[in-house]
């Protein structure tokens, strides 16, 4: 924890074509906004950091968490949380099941259940554990998705336009919640909404275009 996320000359290639190249240090508690037109490789940048680039794409350079090189680690051991445009709550699990899925390993069944209940209360959704995620409102889903990622105890957080699909009235509210909750983590926010960048308050990097 409390290590900066460092992109050291990170370049992403699709076949032989270079999509982007950048170096960046994100301190804990800092939100760096990456902006660029669609097709500029914003999502690919995040996939390179999480280690989930699709077939046919590759990355060069280094991704570091403090001094630890993440390049050699499989995605599930990098401890990089990510939130997408869609909430991607697992449709086969209950709301509580989704949170328990994210909750880091350890603890008895009762302890884990208590932590899930506490997390739900924390985001104003007390008693929602047994609900079907499909019955939640957009704002509620966004809160559950955020909490699920935080419960996995990530060391850095990536945001792939997570507010784009929320309607205007909700957007500011959810955005504030995410930034509040992610305090203490290095955060990279990918967006093409200038209002997101303003709210993030950190440095803005523009790629492509």
């Amino acid at each position, binding site marked *: 924890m409390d290590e900066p996320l460092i992109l050291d000359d990170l370049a992403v290639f699709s076949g032989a074509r270079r999509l982007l190249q950048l170096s960046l240090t994100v301190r804990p508690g800092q939100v760096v906004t990456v902006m660029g037109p669609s097709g500029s490789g914003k999502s690919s940048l995040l*996939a390179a950091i*999480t280690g989930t680039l699709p077939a046919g794409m590759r990355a060069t350079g280094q991704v570091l968490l403090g001094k630890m090189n993440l390049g050699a680690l499989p995605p599930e051991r990098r401890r990089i*949380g*990510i939130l997408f445009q869609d909430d*991607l709550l697992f449709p*086969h699990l209950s709301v509580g099941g989704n949170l328990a*899925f994210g909750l880091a390993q350890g603890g008895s069944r009762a302890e884990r259940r208590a932590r899930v209940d506490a997390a739900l209360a924390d985001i104003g959704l007390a008693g929602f554990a047994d609900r079907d995620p499909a019955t939640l409102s957009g704002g509620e889903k966004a809160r559950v998705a955020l909490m*699920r990622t935080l419960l*996995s105890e990530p060391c850095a957080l990536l945001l792939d336009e997570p507010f784009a699909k929320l309607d205007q009235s909700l957007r500011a509210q959810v955005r504030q919640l995410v930034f509040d909750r992610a305090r203490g983590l290095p955060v990279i926010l990918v967006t093409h909404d200038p209002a997101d960048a303003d709210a993030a308050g950190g440095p803005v990097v523009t790629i492509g275009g």
Partner: protein
Amino acid sequence: MRGRSGTGLLPPVILGLMLLPVAAGLAGTVMPAMGHLPAAGFSGFSLMPFAMLAETPGLGRAVGLSIWTGIAATALSLAITILIAAGWAGTRAFGRLERGLAPLLAVPHAAAAFGLAFLIAPSGWIARLVSPWLTGWTRPPDLLVLADPAGLALIAGLVIKEVPFLMLMLVAALPQANPAQRIRLARSLGYGPVRGWLRGVLPAIYPQIRLPIYAVLAYSMTAIDTALILGPTTPPTLSILILRWTAQPALDYRLVAAAGAMLQLGLVVGALALWRLAEIGYARLMVMRVCAGARGGHGAETALRALGGAVTALVSGILGGGLVTLALWSIAGPWGFPMPLPEALTGVTWARHAAHFGEASLNTAFVALTTTAIALVLALTLIETAPAGQRADRAGWLIYLPLIVPQISFLPGLQTALIGMGLGQGFTPVVMAHLVFVFPYVLLSLADPHAALDPRYDQMARSLRQGAWARLWRVRLPLLLRPMLTAAAVGMSVSVALYLPTLLAGGGRIATLTTEALALAAGGDRRAISVFALVQGAAALVPFVVAALGPAIIWRNRRDLRHG
């Protein structure tokens, strides 16, 4: 598991294992066809088997029948399928048809053929319904409706089963062609919907249904169970001749059978080549027609649509009517001609055969469940270990190979090979033989839904620090529950209906519903046949019911998964 090293070898190994029986079976056919069968005291190589084959009386007619019935059934099935789709795709009626396809498809060939036979025979239900008030018949007329020398009844029996199959394949391929948009474009250019579909959508999906069509052609040319029930007898089709030879006790008939099997294979390859040429010719013709830009009249459009509707009603009517006929016979007391309905209904036939079909049902269920479970595991392994970005069903030709090589051309050879390994009878060789046919269908029905799974669920699970097994068991498999159950239902219905593989690999000792129904065919006891054909049909249908109801019950509190 995806992307882990060390699994790259698995796909070729699994594919190899699946193709090995076909290769071994073909080898076991080629050698005796060349006169080499040491077990029977023939060694060295000679053309004697082919010479004996050539001397068979009626061979020419048998060959002609195989080619004619196979090509006619395939062409007719394809034409009907295209006609229905062109006229009705995108309508509500077509949506209902789509949902009804799986149960139609589940009806085994044998049950459908028996139903058709009892419907159209001179003493069949149709004749009874219109006699004597319309026809004047008080006794069954002396007409050769079944087993007619031209094979028309056989063609009809094949068509009613192959239309649902081709339709299912077409429906699966349809979304990739974006039909609604193409039709809108064609109509804005002044083409009617049918013509627009034929010229704008069909060319885009034909390549995707080409292999299923080839499988239908190969199957129709070499069908065993349908031909035993509906086909001509003197002479029969070539595949039935070969089957008779394999059943002969005299060993030199093995050589003739092997030579016949090679001839059968050659005929299928030739017919496939012919079909391919016809495809190319038709494509050229269509390009010329399209360039001519003819829009056609509104009348032709309406007529084609009406014809499509009528044919749909006819095909489903024959299938459904056949099943009703079977049901009536199974509970019929005395039923003299030309009474339209039995004089009394009774459960005595069911009671009499209960023990018999009970045991056959258990065998059928055991083989189907075992085979399907193995096929599911193998197919999932293959799909999951496929290199990222590569589809497991990319090796299309290889997967379809067991469905295209005629059963009668490699199963006798496989039987010989199995006997050589000390596996001449019992459940193990039957399951192995069934796997050859079940695996391709399971793999094909699983590949598309697996590829359609949103990869971000997996990425999300990885970012939540879940390892490979947890992601498989707790994310991908639950999300794939519905398609897995459907794939299992398809696999089980295929297994339930298999006749020749059960008969040959089991050494005639494993009695399934299908082998017992076919064994009864020669006896002509309509009541007993009906009971077995109905139980066979039910055995093929039950898995589809489970596949439909299972997710609805398991996911009753999960709205996004309740409906496919």
